[in-house]
């Protein structure tokens, strides 16, 4: 373990993480493995912990250290025709940070999110306890499922040091087709049809920049003949499109599209993220567009990123309007840019879990 003047602590193994956590506890300083750090916080650099612990490719699982970058992981898996089918917003991000932040991109419609792939963890909690959960087999119900708890926990419960994922095969082909529309009613009708399409899309994204034009990007996978058949079926699902074009003609382009779709949530222009019911997406988009803001949506999942070119926040009355709509069916609105510091809306059990695993508030 070494540290430099900028309060960066470089760790090489889990023991180093334990030492760093324990000294932070003693010194009453805060610690994070996140890349962006503000204030008087010690930053853990896990980039040296980047080894493959085990990759039994025929079992379709992999165990890696948390400091491995997503770029390295993706290359490794590609060499075996396998993938972790969760869209990568930033290839330089570490696997640990990926799990802690749980960004979800366009393919969550077909593949789910990281919670569906993380099957084992090693982590260090705020007391410096090294703990494990899950294992290295694809099916396992022994003990509490702390893996899922860590997904999206943003470092509040512990520092991840090792992760095991189950994997999927890379499909033969992955393509994305785009349809444009000029009326909200047609978008809504097309989304309704897609829900019961004869095709089985893995991506259903909607761009609603201004309330007068919409584009629907739909991705399908499989052998070329199966993709072609599905695109034909999707065309039948669309209600009065004004035009259609290929958005991503091959797997590389489609994966790039998905990466930028996932990145959108992290961009400075994204002022809020909404979790709605899929059927309500056109309605929520209209409210957003009426404020002069644009909405880019993983429409199949009801996830909407609200974007503003000039970083203008969502006005309070729009927040109220959206929140009252979401309240009716249990949706969520998260403001990502506001004067107030963005705080997690945690219930009593979440707060209890954070207090149990990080009683001295070592983690920021």
């Amino acid at each position, binding site marked *: 373990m070494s540290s430099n003047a900028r309060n960066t602590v470089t760790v090489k193994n889990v023991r180093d993480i334990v030492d760093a956590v324990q000294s932070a506890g003693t010194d009453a300083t805060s610690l994070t493995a996140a890349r962006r750090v503000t204030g008087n916080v010690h930053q853990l650099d896990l980039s040296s912990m980047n080894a493959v612990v085990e990759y039994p490719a025929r079992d379709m699982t992999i165990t890696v250290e948390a400091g491995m970058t997503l770029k390295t992981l993706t290359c490794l898996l590609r060499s075996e025709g396998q993938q972790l089918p969760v869209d990568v917003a930033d290839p330089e991000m570490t696997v640990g940070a990926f799990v802690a932040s749980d960004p979800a991109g366009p393919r969550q419609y077909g593949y789910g999110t990281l919670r569906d792939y993380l099957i084992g963890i090693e982590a260090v909690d705020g007391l410096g306890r090294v703990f494990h959960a899950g294992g290295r*087999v694809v099916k396992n*119900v022994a003990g509490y499922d702390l893996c899922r708890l860590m997904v999206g926990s943003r470092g509040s419960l512990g520092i991840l040091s090792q992760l095991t994922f189950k994997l999927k095969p890379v499909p033969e082909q992955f393509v994305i087709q785009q349809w444009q529309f000029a009326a909200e009613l047609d978008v809504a009708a097309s989304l309704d049809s897609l829900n019961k399409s004869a095709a089985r899309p893995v991506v259903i994204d909607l761009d609603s920049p201004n309330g007068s034009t919409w584009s629907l990007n739909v991705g399908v996978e499989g052998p070329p003949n199966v993709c072609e058949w599905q695109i034909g079926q999707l065309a039948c699902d669309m209600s009065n499109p004004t035009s259609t074009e290929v958005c991503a003609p091959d797997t590389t382009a489609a994966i790039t599209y998905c990466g930028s779709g996932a990145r959108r949530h992290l961009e400075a222009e994204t002022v809020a993220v909404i979790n709605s019911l899929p059927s309500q997406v056109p309605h929520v988009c209209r409210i957003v567009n009426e404020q002069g803001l644009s909405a880019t949506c993983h429409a199949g999942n009801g996830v909407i990123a609200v974007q503003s070119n000039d970083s203008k926040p969502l006005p309070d009355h729009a927040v109220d309007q959206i929140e009252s709509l979401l309240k009716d069916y249990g949706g969520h609105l998260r403001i990502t840019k506001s004067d107030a510091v963005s705080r997690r809306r945690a219930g009593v059990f979440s707060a209890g879990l954070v207090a149990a695993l990080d009683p001295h508030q070592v983690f920021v």
Partner: protein
Amino acid sequence: MTISAPSGIISDDLLCELAQHVGTDQLLSSQDELLVYECDGYVVEKNVPDVVVFPQSAAEIQAVVKSCVRHGVPFVPRGAGTSLAGGCLPVGGGVMISLTRMKQILEINTRDRYAVVQPGLVNLHLTRALAGTGFHYAPDPSSQGACTIGGNVATNSGGPHTLKYGVTVNHVTGVEFVSPTGELVQIGGPCGCGDDLDLPGLFVGSEGTFGIVTKIWVKLTRNPESCRTMLAVFDSTDDTSQAISSIIGAGIVPAALEMMDQGIITALEEAFAFGFPLDAAAVLLIEVDGLDVALDQEAETIITLCKQSGAREVRLSQTEEERALLWKCRKQAFGAIGRLAPSYCTQDGVVPRTKLPQILKFIADVGERCNIRIVNVFHAGDGNLHPILLFDERDREQVRRVMDASDEILEMCIELGGSVTGEHGIGVEKISFMNRLFSEQDLDVMGDVRRVFNPDGICSPGKLLPTAGACGMEHIQREHPGRRAAM
């Protein structure tokens, strides 16, 4: 129902309170009626609860729990009682909360692909209610005709089709529960958890130790357009394991990949006269589903891989009736075992899929060494074994040998990098394996997590963690030293 004088740890006051909360006709307290609830599908450990209540609403459950807390009496939830790990055992006695009267489907929304159900709803009843909508509820435990969705949530149940579609946790977006202190809490919902921690993900599989589930939001899955179902026949179990490995290794994810060995085939043939080859060492039941346009190619690849691995023959189901019969055989395999021996014990170990040849050989050796007949029917695609140890429970010596053999098998699963339970849970049955799977610190952290939900340990004591809520555990340790097997 009759209310008898309270026994054990239940005072007159508590009994009166419970009767007031649920009504006298929704409460059992006489010994003969309670006997039914002394165990679940795991019949080795038995303990009669002092009272069983049948609440019909979350509010009634809250009232029951609050009374139990006030009187310091433990309580345990129970669904259909099909647990194979003793999850429903009332360790230390107390109040059993049966959820079977809360079995309504509260909402079905196919446009947004979710349903809201009460915990006592039988798994299969949801899929039946969805017939004709083009959607189904994917987790399909073999016990789905009896087990409840609340029980599935508590144990994170799997099933034959979870290879492709995932287990219960992959299909639950929200849970409402009565906490062990009596509060009604909702975590997640139809739109997930938003900005909060993934509490539903943690709750699923907590085996009744975090509270009583009162409402569940589940995802609905599109029905596949079509499927192809194959039966591959092998002369050796090694070849069968090789075929499993080849299929998975080739990047094919079948909807189901189930293995049945000769012992099971014989029993099934007697029961269903399907036409299984009685001289085969094992058969694989393989199903691929999805778009019809893709399936012939996938089926062809699988047939080729099976033949390359040494399959004697691969039959493709030609009719829906033939497919249905094959699945009936698989799902009722446990029922057919009654033909082989008076008692049986099912284990639930998991190994990495490539280790199947090793573990199957090991199981055969253990059977020989312990002089116990063992047959296998299991979720091969997940590496989730169900060795079934056949015996006569009247013979104590046989019982001991079954326990020894089970221990050896599960220990080997751990040694091969696997786990002692893929879907049945730890319950009381496998508690003594927890400190072999996990370190003391792992268990400490899990204990802390449990205390956040269940601070006094009176909700489902004696389950899942070796150090959990002490009441009653001493009794189990004394009567059954070491691990106990599900029989």
